[in-house]
């Protein structure tokens, strides 16, 4: 009977109210999506916020730190900067420091990276036969960070079932909870 009481609120709704209930859920998801897309446009980076997943940049960044990235074309890449880059064949972007930069007069650039906490540079991480990174590999440059918050993301990724359970729970709550 408990279940009945709990759905009673929904049962009294007419088709329009039910439709709005679904729309309301869609708007919550949309707001998150549009904030993300908005950040993408403003920062020029396809992934304006990333979570540090490894300890390879300690002591600068630790596992679970949240990084804010920008990726403006007019800002040149310089040695010493921390960049986030993608490597072919790897799903997850890497956050490392730029060690060497070669720049031509026409603006094309190639560079080498290394993790502060790693003993060797990143050539071993790049795609087979790749010795340098190019401008197009860059997802963004680190501009700011918030420590520890990203640990939630890491836990979620380590336990995908937990993640889906939380998401499903929140989704159902919003759908069946009337305004």
């Amino acid at each position, binding site marked *: 009977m408990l279940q009945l*009481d709990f759905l009673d*609120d929904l049962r009294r709704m007419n088709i329009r109210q039910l439709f*709005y209930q679904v729309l309301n859920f869609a708007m919550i998801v949309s707001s998150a999506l549009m904030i993300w897309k908005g950040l993408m446009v403003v920062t020029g980076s396809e992934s304006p916020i990333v979570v540090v997943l490894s300890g390879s940049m300690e002591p600068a960044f630790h596992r679970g730190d949240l990084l804010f990235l920008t990726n403006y074309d007019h800002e040149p890449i310089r040695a010493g900067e921390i960049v986030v880059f993608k490597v072919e064949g790897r799903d997850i972007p890497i956050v490392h420091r730029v060690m060497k930069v070669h720049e031509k007069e026409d603006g094309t650039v190639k560079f080498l990276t290394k993790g502060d906490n790693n003993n060797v540079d990143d050539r071993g991480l790049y795609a087979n036969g790749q010795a340098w990174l190019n401008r197009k590999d860059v997802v963004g440059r680190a501009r700011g960070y918030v420590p520890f918050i990203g640990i939630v993301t890491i836990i979620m990724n380590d336990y995908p079932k937990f993640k889906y359970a939380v998401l499903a729970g929140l989704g159902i709550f919003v759908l069946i909870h009337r305004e």
Partner: protein
Amino acid sequence: MPEKVVATMEENPPKVNKWDGNALKNALDDAVKDVLLSRFSYIESHKLLDGRLIISSVAVGFSVFALIWDLLYPFPQSRTVMCVCVISYFIMMGVLTWYTTYLECGIFCTALKKDAAGIDPDDVWNASSSLKRFDNKYHLRVTQKAGKTGKAKEARTVLTVENYFDETGKLLYGSVAKEVLRLHSDVEHKKN
């Protein structure tokens, strides 16, 4: 398949969790609406809610479009479209807020009283309510706009919620109906 039994709200009043303010308000709103529509030969008008549905649908449409476009043309290419979608989406959110605050103002039911002769425009009855968080005072307002003269009349009341639910949380339909009928006749007999 079990036979569907349609019980009116009066026969089967809702039971709510009395500590959930939202549920209380929804139950009272539904009861007020039920009284207005069942005791008088009024026809419900869905215009206000339809407006809200259209605004929300357009907003969600922008975000769905942005999502699909970004999949087809990955980011740096889709920049302009993203920009337009994001701005439009947040404008629609602003419109929605404006709509609910200034046009809907808590109106949960619009009922039309058709002119008997079918010549004059309908009388429009609106019921709006508010219940503050953690408060037990349910503010109910009933307004009537005469179709013929365009004159508006209104009556308000404040209901203390615990008087309209029994100890198990069942809505006391009769008590709500009494209040609504009283408000309704107050408005009807009010002189401008």
